[in-house]
């Protein structure tokens, strides 16, 4: 079973969100559970730096051998940074989903809604695996 770090927040779309408690800029990636379900990731499309997104917007995609998944903005705000390393080497999503495989950073506007705790996300994924 893949690990689910305690300190992160999660979405139902299998993304993790770091830094929510600071209320400023959050980092977003896909969970190890999602990476396992996808299989080998071959293509990652990240949003454009400077674009403004709303929570729930489809802002990118992660493509594997067998399938493609949209990436949703877990919070609203401005995209301030994306990870060039993961665009160059999409396999980072598989090898280090919570680290080198991060996707983008958002400067939050307003309060995030509907994020899950690690415990809630564990419950969600135990029903799907």
């Amino acid at each position: 079973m893949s690990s689910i770090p305690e300190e992160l927040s999660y979405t139902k779309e299998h993304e993790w969100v770091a830094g929510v408690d600071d209320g400023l800029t959050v980092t977003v990636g896909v969970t190890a559970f999602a990476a396992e379900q996808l299989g080998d990731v071959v293509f990652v499309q990240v949003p454009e730096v400077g674009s403004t997104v709303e929570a729930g917007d489809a802002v990118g995609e992660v493509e594997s051998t067998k399938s493609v998944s949209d990436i949703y903005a877990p919070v609203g705000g401005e995209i301030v940074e994306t990870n060039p390393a993961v665009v160059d080497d999409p396999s980072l999503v598989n090898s280090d989903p919570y680290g080198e495989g991060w996707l983008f950073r958002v400067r939050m506007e307003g309060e995030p809604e509907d994020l899950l705790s690690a415990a809630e996300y564990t419950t969600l994924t135990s029903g799907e695996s």
Partner: protein
Amino acid sequence: MSRSTPLREVHEGLGATLTDFAGWQMPLRYGSESAEHNAVRTAAGLFDLSHMGEIHVTGPQAGEALDYALVGHLSVLEPGRARYTMIVAENGGVLDDLIVYRLAPEDFMVVANASNYAKVAQELTERAKSYDAQVEDRSDAYALVAIQGPNSTAILGKLTDADLVGLKYYAGLPGTVAGFEVMIARTGYTGEDGFELFARPEDAAGLWNALTEAGAELGLRPCGLSSRDTLRLEAGMPLYGNELSAEMTPFDAGLGRVVKFDKPGDFVGKAALSGHPAPERRLVGLVARGRRVPRHGYPVTREGEVVGVVTSGAPSQTLGKPIAMAYVSADALEKGNLAVDIRGSQEPVDVVDLPFYRRSK
């Protein structure tokens, strides 16, 4: 409730991700599907194909019955040899693609896809009625394990005295592998040299483990359906449900060569297939210029107009680019400048001859 092959526990022990395929729980991958794909291209891979169906047609007129029931000329097949063929409906639509082995003068084994074999067995039974031949679905009596890749002969050779070097492509012979009685066929669905071993279900795990052990030093990896699909796509091989369906004839799929009009007598579909018009659409290979992957069902477009549809698509390990097979109108193919509509954006593609990959002999 989906069915399990005799190797279910072996797969679970290897940590396989299982998936439902045509009502069967099958290994999708064991680890990285790219590594599995590359193992078959460079060393060897081991596949569980026990979900496939095996239907025996036996008796003095078994060959004639198959000549009538299928589009191929099976009565002239030499014992020990195999043919790729198809079963079509009266209207010429493809019901399944098949490999037929002549095991003995009066014993043919028809290997059908998991999703179709019940229907194929039923059709064969119906079509063989007026012949001195018996049709029996013996799918449950077989496990099927394939070893594919350039090291296949070396690995299998450690476990059998059978004449593997003398065994031709599309031929099969009975043999003993690691002490288990099997039918060894030189067939496959990966574009590589390799073998398919038809074994008793109770021998499947022992056979699998013996092959795994023999292959350990030669790069053998267990491989799931995910890599099987990308391997056959690179090799330009059709998959029923994608490139083939009841809505198209063998000619539509560019496989008209399997229809043997010159064999004696009538066969099911002959009238419909005779004088078939040249198909308006052709099955072609596409290579994407970008990194996004054309997938099954995506429209092929030309200047914004839909001119075809993708039947299979995947990132190609061997080419390092996304590839696809697609049905495209002959007219648009002539004009060129094609794209695939990938979720709303028109991604340019180049048309190439199939297969995408051909092994060096």
